[in-house]
């Protein structure tokens, strides 16, 4: 049986949690995966799936820029590499980014997906929360939001997959898909394999 080569961008963030989640997702689907940590451009060769983990988007952005990874990643994703971005990963992939306190951040981003995000939209760590989320085509997932961004706008081919009814902010988009690109404002890697299974299915052309 052939195996899918999964790259996890490993500059900073919860890389090991994603590796564990995707390994378990693959076992549940009966698929072979071969996991690579992506730190340099040459680690991108032959990837079938890419995961951009949670972390600090400013740190991931500046390390990626320094390494010359930004342009290569952008090319690969635009050319159809199935990609999941969670939390910081979603910020990194978005075309428009703002911060809820300082406003414009000027940080390095890939800017590949038709979404606008607001960083730290729900507030600081004290406002971080977990909630049951109904995700279109995936089902109900217990979701953890940690200093999480909100997707405030999605346009073009982007389809919102889930939203949360937040007591303070009202209805906020928390997951979205645009063709090969999947983003979540929360951290599926901490609680579930469902999103990673969906990602592998996208990669195998089943979704």
């Amino acid at each position, binding site marked *: 049986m052939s195996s899918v080569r999964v790259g996890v961008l*490993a*500059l*900073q*963030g*919860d*890389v*090991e*949690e994603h*590796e*564990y*989640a995707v390994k378990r997702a693959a076992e549940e689907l009966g698929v072979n995966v071969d996991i690579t940590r992506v*730190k*340099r451009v040459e680690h991108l060769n032959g990837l079938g799936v890419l995961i951009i983990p*949670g*972390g*600090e988007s*400013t*740190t991931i952005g*500046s*390390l990626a820029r*320094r390494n010359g990874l930004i342009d290569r990643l952008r090319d690969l994703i635009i050319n159809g590499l199935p990609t999941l971005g969670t*939390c*910081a990963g979603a910020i990194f992939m978005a075309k428009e980014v703002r*911060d809820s*306190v*300082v406003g414009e*951040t000027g940080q390095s981003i890939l800017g590949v997906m038709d979404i606008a995000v607001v*960083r*730290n939209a729900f*507030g*600081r*760590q*004290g*406002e*971080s*929360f*977990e*909630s*049951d989320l109904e995700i279109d085509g995936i089902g109900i997932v217990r979701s*953890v*939001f*940690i*200093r999480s961004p909100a997707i405030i706008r999605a346009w073009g081919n982007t389809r919102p997959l889930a939203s*949360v*009814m*937040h*007591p303070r902010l009202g209805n906020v988009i928390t997951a979205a898909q645009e063709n090969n690109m999947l983003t979540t404002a929360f*951290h599926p*890697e*901490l*609680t579930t394999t469902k999103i990673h299974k969906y990602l592998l299915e996208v990669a195998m052309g089943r979704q």
Partner: protein
Amino acid sequence: MSVATGFEYLEKLRDFFYGMLELRDRLRASGFSWPRPYELGGVATGTVKVKVGFPSMLRNGVIMDVTNVEQAQIAEEAGAVGVMVLDKLPYDVRKAGGVARMADVKVIEDVMRHITIPVSAKVRIGHYYEAFILEQIGVDLIDESEVLTPVDEQHHINKWLFVVPFVNGCRELCEALRRISEGASMIRSKGEAGTGNVSEAVKHFKVLYGAINELYAAYRDGDEERLRDFARQCQVPLELVALTARLGRLPVITFAAGGIATPADAALMMWLGADGVFVGSGIFKSQDSRERAEAIVLATAHWDDPEVVVESQRMVSERASMMGTDIRSLKPEELLQTRGV
């Protein structure tokens, strides 16, 4: 190894430890909502997953000690995953003597208004009200730190009571497990802060992982007696010892701290098994803070890539490093690491 696998177990332990259930009933009877999380419209804050999950996002990152907004902005631009706001850098705390306390609330709030990355601050060991104040103003992570003067020589804060996550220092495994059983969401080595000498942090990491590896082997051999003895010796719940043994690591994110002053120091600590590093006086007590901050971020992220570690070390000059202190020249009463039990 993913720490996510331990979350559910930690959740169970939370309700178990130290007769907390009894305390909950008493608090409820007097009208308090406890344990947090309380749910509001299906949204639960302050849960174990949220508190222990937060430090997972700091993995492979650097948290830098700062004393003002300008330093915090330098840290953010250099790629830090967080800042720790102090009144004085540990080096100056050591020199000044007297009582070291929490930083000014106004300075902390000022830093929070100017940067997008998480803001942490230190409280004195056992000082519930400094912690309460920091939680109220919205600090993202509290360090219950031996660098400040302890207010309670015998007890640490019961950190399960707070919504905000805490990080605590340790010198060895028993101390780490005691802190986790009190609700710490993250552990760091104590090292010897403010010395610019990483030797104590190295020692603490080796002792910590030496003990974990022994437990891991005992768990593999099915030697439950060994785990039981260890739990009794450390005065921590067996369940927590068994979880650590099963994972082969602490069940929470573990950073290195204490005396890290150069990119090579940071890479060394990552190699010894740290999930990330705290840099205290090392950056803003050097003559080349900006370059050094960036170089330490780079060396931490790429510790396993020799070329990049060399490149990062080239960015700093030893002539600009902070002056180090030989640990042997410190009197026992000058050691910060022995504070807290």
